């Protein structure tokens, strides 16, 4: 967690609304040039965190730095390096798409000509050239979100904040947005992305943090998070029902935990510790016993499972978890 290699650093961020702490000591460190996913249910504090880090909201305690600039003391410098695309498209609905981008370019202090040129470039690249002259208010949700993203890319931000960027988008628009994010990241922009969709974090993020009730409950790569909540499982499907009992016996011997058996589907599963070694051992044992395998594989727990467990799911209503 050193400042020099982290584009976004937060230490002990606290924000209170009335008597509830929307953020309750949030620590963050987003390595420069990576895509960082912030995952959490509604009301976990994701949007509050983004609004604080983008200088839109004051905070009660803690420190935060964006690209080395202090959020509280150097807000103007921070605004100079960030891009923000919010949950709701922050564009002018009366102006046309082109007018919007020119306006924001001018407010970024581009010359009139440079602002126009940049606007046209972005409209072209985000597939909005055909509707450039129409009021943004008449755009579809996906088009508006693309315009919003284009608006936050006018100056090529060093750190891009995406607050639930695909909420309410159809799959096609979502995929378009995802590929735009990937491309930005590939070109060195640090991206902090909040989402309720585990799939989104899994797809895009190099590292993921899970936040709940204003604090971080877990952090790591997607694989690390999955690993943290439990062992991998080996799953075997045998061709003949006759092989089920013998396979169960082999798994009992080689696996790290209780074996589940579905005789009807001829499917067996068990947790394992060293996944690759376990796979090899099981396959050799099955072969030696002459059991014909229809399918065999290793499975990691899904992020959904990880998420529910990490946010102490069961008892809590985890609203909006993907699917």
């Amino acid at each position, binding site marked *: 967690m050193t400042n020099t290699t982290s584009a976004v650093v937060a230490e002990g961020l606290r924000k209170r609304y009335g008597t509830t702490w929307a953020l309750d000591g949030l620590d963050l460190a987003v390595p420069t040039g990576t895509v960082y996913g912030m995952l959490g249910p509604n009301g976990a504090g994701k949007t509050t965190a983004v609004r604080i880090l*983008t*200088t*839109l*909201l*004051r905070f009660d305690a803690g420190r935060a730095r964006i*690209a*080395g*600039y202090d959020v509280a003391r*150097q807000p*103007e*410098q*921070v*605004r*100079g*390096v*960030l891009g*923000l695309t*919010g949950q*709701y*498209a*922050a*564009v*002018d*609905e*009366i*102006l*046309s798409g082109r*007018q919007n981008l020119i*306006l*924001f370019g*001018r*407010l*970024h*202090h*581009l010359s009139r000509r*440079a602002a126009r040129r*940049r606007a046209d*470039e*972005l409209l*072209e*690249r*985000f*597939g909005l050239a055909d509707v450039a002259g129409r*009021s943004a208010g008449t755009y579809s949700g996906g088009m508006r979100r693309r315009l919003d993203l284009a*608006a*936050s*890319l*006018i*100056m*090529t*931000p*060093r750190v891009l904040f995406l607050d639930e960027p695909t909420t309410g988008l159809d799959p096609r628009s979502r995929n*378009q947005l995802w*590929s*735009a994010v990937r*491309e*930005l990241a590939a*070109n*060195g*922009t640090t991206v902090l992305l909040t989402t309720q969709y585990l799939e989104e974090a899994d797809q895009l993020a190099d590292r993921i943090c899970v936040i709940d009730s204003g604090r971080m409950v877990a952090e790591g790569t997607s694989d690390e998070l999955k690993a943290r909540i439990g062992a991998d499982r080996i799953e075997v499907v045998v061709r003949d029902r006759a092989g089920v009992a013998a396979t169960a016996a082999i798994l009992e011997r080689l696996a790290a935990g209780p074996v589940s058996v579905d005789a009807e589907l001829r499917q067996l599963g068990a947790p394992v510790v060293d996944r690759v070694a376990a796979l090899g051992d099981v396959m050799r044992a099955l072969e030696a016993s002459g059991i014909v395998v229809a399918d065999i594989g290793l499975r990691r727990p899904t992020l959904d499972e990880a998420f529910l467990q990490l946010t102490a799911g069961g008892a809590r209503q985890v609203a909006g978890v993907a699917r």
Partner: protein
Amino acid sequence: MTGVGGVVGGVAGDGGGAVNGGDAVRRFRWAVVDGATMTGRNMAHVVRSPEEIIIYFSLPIMFVLVFGYVFGSGMTVPGAGSYREFLLPGVFVMTMLYGLGATASGVAMDVSRGVVDRFRSIPMARSALVTGRTGADLIRALLEMTTLVVCGLLVGWQWRNGVVDALAAVGLILLLRLAFTCLGIFFGLVVPNPDTVGVIVFPLAFPLTALSNVFVAPELLPDWLGAVAAWNPLSATVAAARELFGNPGIGGDSWPAQHAALLAVVWPLVLIAVFAPLAVRRYQRLGR
């Protein structure tokens, strides 16, 4: 999104390059430039929704016609003179007051739609939101005044004391519009719902107009109402404008009527002194 290739290649973001702390002159220059950009943006709104403008301009014109011709026949002007000539300065000022609604709903619209988040997250001068709104509203007020003056000339109104006095009258009217802009920005921030804000402005504006010297001389009202009307900020500007235009209906024995020109300057300045800081504070509280 036909291949986002080169999204990144465009313009290099330079860490805080646009704003170098400490350089006051530079800062001021950008504040002016950003204010002008925002003025342009707000004027573009007007151009893009002409139907609003048509409705907006037709109201004062209707007032001129309805009050001038329908009720005007039954109205008397203190001293002597044409009622329509008496009425026009009142309609000028009333139009400025109703402009407050447009200011407030414009501000409320920005705040409610989240576009203000984008303005606040880019390194532009924050004052530009206020100065841009003010600039656009003053341009708009000038257009309205032009329309009304033409309309007035058509129904027999005229200025009788020369161009300089007439321009001074217009200046006082625009000063009051400036005060209403501050008030409107404040309302727009307090009630950040563009629909509600219109509902609030009308009940405020209507009695303020009725209880003034816009339509009738305060001397013709019952005593206590007359006193309220005489002290009404609208009345000061209207009386001062009538005097400068040389239109009938000047006078009255009350202190405010005798010092209309002074009050026409003091009232707007007081309103600005109260509501401009309040608006700025509300604006800053958006970050709470």
